[in-house]
């Protein structure tokens, strides 16, 4: 049995408390923002080096940021004459346009604490969910090697319940108009008599309506948590069941059903929770893209906890080959993520259809460094670091590679969310860091707490012996004689 060390418990609680304080502070300062602050922000950005080009980029800017208050211009024919109309507005009603612009920027400033929290929340929830899905895959594929780390994966999924509750609260808060994260939720977007009327959103309102959004969100969270609750209880039962693998088969069946439901809910979740931030934009492989990003992060987190717990002596049967296999998965899915990222980007870049391209225009003009830096962190770095077979079995190497991968995929979620909610007003400051600290602290606490509750070895699993003797042929395990294999 593993003992949750007092030091680490204190550390994780400190992270949570620090996070809560930082989040509370950023929400407070976010609510204090006024139209004056917005005007200052506009002035500051105008005096920037790229400020000169601002007038020219105003047209794509207006289209890309969907909760723009110029919603009346968003019907398709108006798009064509948009640039013209825009410059006219600039010249004739210069003053009123300034105020509209300031109001728009004010919304972005007010969105920032919400978005910063939402990015970290979604990242944490997504990682936990994908660990659960990976765990279900191990059961369904009857995988031999990973049995000795199944309990690590199970422990990580303990994080699912708290983050699901927080996600449900954020969803409810959005539906109650406590934030401006989802522009299609704004008042009057589907009311033809309103100034805010948005025919594109109206056309999608059979899907994008608050009731449906709320019900679907709750349904996803319930399905995931139901499987997690069942499989955890049943997996512990498996240890002592001794019933001719009946419990094992029941868990197998449950995992098959979960994976089926997971693939559907994961796709819909990515439309609702991420693509819904940009209601004018759509991409068909988006669900897979989000899946790949979260899956590689989930594998990295599994590797981190496995390496840590093994170093603490809590996983007696985990050898270098198990680490090597996890690193292979991290490597492979990093490449898979890059493949999807590039496929989405290149198809849109190549055809350059304005209604699709605005998504990347917003990211390229205002997020160039994180947008391109993310590709280096999530592709170039893991490719070079984890290509060598010897490196993949060295825990500290996997740790360095994993750290960059996790930071890169945080950036990825950041770039999925931020341009649609805060636009050019982004920064990595107190709101972002404190939200991240809160969820990391929660992650460490729930995982290690759950891991210390039950035996780290799933004794009832029929593949346990195979997993204990798992050996990848060209790995020399540290401290092993050459005659041991």
């Amino acid at each position: 049995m593993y003992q949750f060390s007092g030091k680490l418990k204190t550390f994780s609680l400190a992270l949570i408390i620090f996070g809560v304080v930082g989040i509370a502070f950023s929400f407070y300062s976010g609510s204090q923002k006024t139209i004056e602050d917005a005007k200052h922000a506009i002035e500051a950005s105008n005096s920037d080096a790229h400020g000169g080009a601002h007038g020219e980029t105003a047209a794509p800017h207006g289209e890309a940021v969907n909760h723009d208050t110029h919603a009346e211009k968003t019907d398709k024919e108006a798009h064509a004459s948009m640039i013209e109309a825009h410059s006219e507005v600039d010249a004739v009603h210069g003053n009123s346009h300034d105020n509209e612009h300031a109001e728009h920027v004010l919304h972005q400033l007010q969105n920032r604490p919400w978005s910063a929290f939402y990015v970290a929340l979604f990242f944490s929830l997504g990682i936990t969910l994908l660990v659960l899905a990976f765990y279900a895959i191990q059961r369904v594929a009857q995988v031999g090697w990973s049995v000795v780390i199944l309990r690590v994966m199970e422990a990580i999924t303990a994080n699912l319940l708290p983050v699901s509750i927080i996600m449900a609260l954020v969803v409810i808060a959005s539906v109650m108009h406590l934030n401006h994260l989802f522009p299609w939720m704004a008042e009057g977007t589907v009311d033809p008599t309103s100034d805010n009327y948005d025919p594109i959103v109206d056309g999608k309102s059979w899907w994008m309506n608050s009731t449906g959004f709320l019900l679907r969100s709750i349904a996803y969270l319930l399905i995931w948590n139901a499987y997690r609750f069942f499989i955890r209880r049943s997996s512990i039962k498996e240890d002592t069941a001794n019933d001719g693998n009946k419990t094992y088969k029941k868990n197998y069946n449950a995992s098959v059903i979960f994976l089926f439901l997971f693939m559907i809910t994961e796709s819909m979740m990515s439309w609702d929770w991420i693509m819904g931030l940009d209601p004018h934009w759509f991409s068909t492989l988006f669900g897979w893209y989000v899946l790949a990003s979260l899956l590689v992060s989930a594998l990295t987190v599994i590797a981190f906890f496995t390496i840590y717990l093994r170093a603490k002596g809590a996983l007696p049967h985990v050898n270098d080959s198990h680490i090597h296999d996890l690193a292979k998965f991290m490597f492979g899915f990093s490449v898979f993520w890059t493949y999807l990222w590039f496929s989405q980007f290149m198809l849109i870049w190549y055809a350059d259809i304005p209604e699709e391209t605005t998504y990347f225009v917003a990211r390229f003009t205002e997020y160039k460094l994180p947008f391109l830096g993310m590709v280096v962190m999530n592709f170039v770095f893991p490719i070079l670091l984890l290509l060598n077979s010897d490196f993949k079995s060295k825990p500290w190497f996997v740790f360095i590679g994993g750290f960059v991968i996790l930071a890169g995929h945080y950036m990825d979620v950041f770039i999925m969310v931020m341009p649609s909610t805060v636009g050019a007003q982004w920064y990595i400051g107190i709101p972002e860091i404190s939200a991240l600290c809160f969820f990391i602290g929660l992650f460490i606490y729930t995982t290690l707490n759950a891991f210390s509750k039950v035996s780290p070895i799933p004794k009832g699993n029929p593949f346990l012996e195979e997993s204990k003797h798992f050996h990848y042929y060209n790995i020399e395990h540290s401290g092993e004689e050459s005659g041991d294999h």
Partner: protein
Amino acid sequence: MEASKVIHAFYTDDEVLLDAVKAVKAEHHHIEEVFCPFPVHGLDKAMGLAPTKLAITAFMYGITGLAFAIWMTNYIMIEDWPQDIGGKPSFSWFENMPAFVPIMFELTVFFAAHLMVITFYMRSRIWPFKDAENPDPRTTDDHFLMEIPIHNNEEVLTSLLSKTGAVEINIVDKH
């Protein structure tokens, strides 16, 4: 000096063969060659063979292919005749880079794969009209053969090999 005589020990089971290889290595005899009908896991380790460097060559070949693709796309599409084809920006290589990625990827894989295979053929001396070097046709079906050079230690080797479960031990002149 190359030994003119070798000993051929036959086995019918890969586990017995592995133990025999270990026993022979433990007595510090040099094993010239082992012939197997299929790959035996751990045989290279038991024989003490150095790991292959084929993966490293493949990496180099891949980089070569990537460099070739970059040079080719840059020369043809940007430097030699930078036309406007469907509005794609051909002012510099980077601006049009996404369009070149598919060919960059394919050429990297192409170079890495084919040159590595050719390297493998060359290093293993395999080509279409090569004469087979098989000392006994049974080793392609169900027998394993260990070949040990003899340096005036015929009796020692024979008794050692017969203890390891060899089904047949022959002394052969090697030319």
